[in-house]
């Protein structure tokens, strides 16, 4: 079991869900993360979105290429450690030019207790930028709606591949230790 630094139920996942709904997002591939759990629940309960659990994050990049070819928008949910799993598959994005939006819950920063999370968390933004994906960040709940709106608009309207990093400061650092 673990506790979060902020135990009150967050509402920013509802803001994200509302934005995705407004942009007519239909396919939501994900590898679970505690920080995404409420959003995943909303997606799985939705009648317009399909939540698609993956075995590894790169599956989601390829899935979104197929979804767009078939006329649907999607968004990939993952945590920062999954970004490394995606690297080669990210090459599909500039080649096929499909709208790519991913929401990444961050580990390995802001009060992290697990050293094993730090290397990938530290390179997440760099990996995206080297792969041609623009990076936006939300560090507190108040800025989530505006960041999501900007990210979805540029990803779906301007075909600008975009990752939103949901900072560990926003989601709350995991605490296993005393």
């Amino acid at each position, binding site marked *: 079991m673990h506790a979060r630094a902020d135990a009150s139920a967050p509402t920013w996942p509802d803001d994200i869900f509302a934005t995705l709904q407004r942009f007519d997002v239909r*396919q939501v591939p994900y590898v679970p993360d505690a920080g995404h759990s409420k959003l995943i629940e909303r997606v799985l309960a939705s009648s317009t979105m399909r939540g698609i659990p993956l075995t590894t994050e790169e599956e989601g990049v390829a899935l979104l290429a197929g979804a767009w*070819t078939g*006329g*649907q928008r999607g968004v990939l949910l993952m945590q920062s450690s999954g970004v490394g799993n995606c690297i080669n598959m990210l090459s*599909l994005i500039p080649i*096929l030019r499909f709208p790519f939006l991913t929401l990444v819950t961050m580990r390995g920063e802001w009060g992290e207790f697990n050293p094993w999370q730090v290397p990938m968390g530290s390179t997440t933004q760099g990996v995206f930028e080297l792969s041609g994906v623009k990076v936006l960040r939300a560090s507190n709940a108040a800025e989530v709606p505006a960041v999501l709106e900007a990210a979805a608009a540029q990803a779906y309207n301007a075909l600008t591949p975009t990752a939103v990093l949901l900072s560990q400061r926003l989601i709350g650092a995991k605490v296993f230790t005393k």
Partner: protein
Amino acid sequence: MSKANLLDRRQVVSTLLADRKDVVAIGGLGASTNDITAAGDHARNFYLWGGMGGAAMIGLGLALAQPKLPVLVITGDGEMLMGMGSLATIGLQKPANLSIVVLDNEAYGETGGQTSHTSAAADLVGVARACGVTDSRSISTMAEVEAFAKALHDVSAGPRFANVKIGSAGVERILPTRDGTYIVNRIRGDLGFQPI
């Protein structure tokens, strides 16, 4: 090991696509995408020149977006092995209009013919079935290929998986367009979608 009765990859693919009607066909990185080209260029052909391991997932995204269209992924054993987890993802979603055919020559033909895991140990038919793709079969005759070619038009009975043991003889290189944006937008246009 006997290598008798191995099927010809070009004959298998041309049979799968001979009466394709509204099928969208995805060719995995490597010789499979060339086989689809050899069967005849088509507005609904999705040629992959990269993204190894992604062919089945592209098929899943397309199949979920277009549930009334038969979606056919044709790929090789090496490409399927790299994306083996996607069989678990597909087994969970159970898209009834998705069919996957692996052209299994038990080798990485594009890189010098090094043997693949299917040559001695890995059983992709068993993997697909164990992942929840219950219609999973091994194909060794052209009659079975013809039956599969008919079955894949039934968009209510998938997902289905077939592993076809093929000969490893080299075939003439027939290359499709390498322009990915053109490939995607041509399919989208044929499905009735406008440019953004």
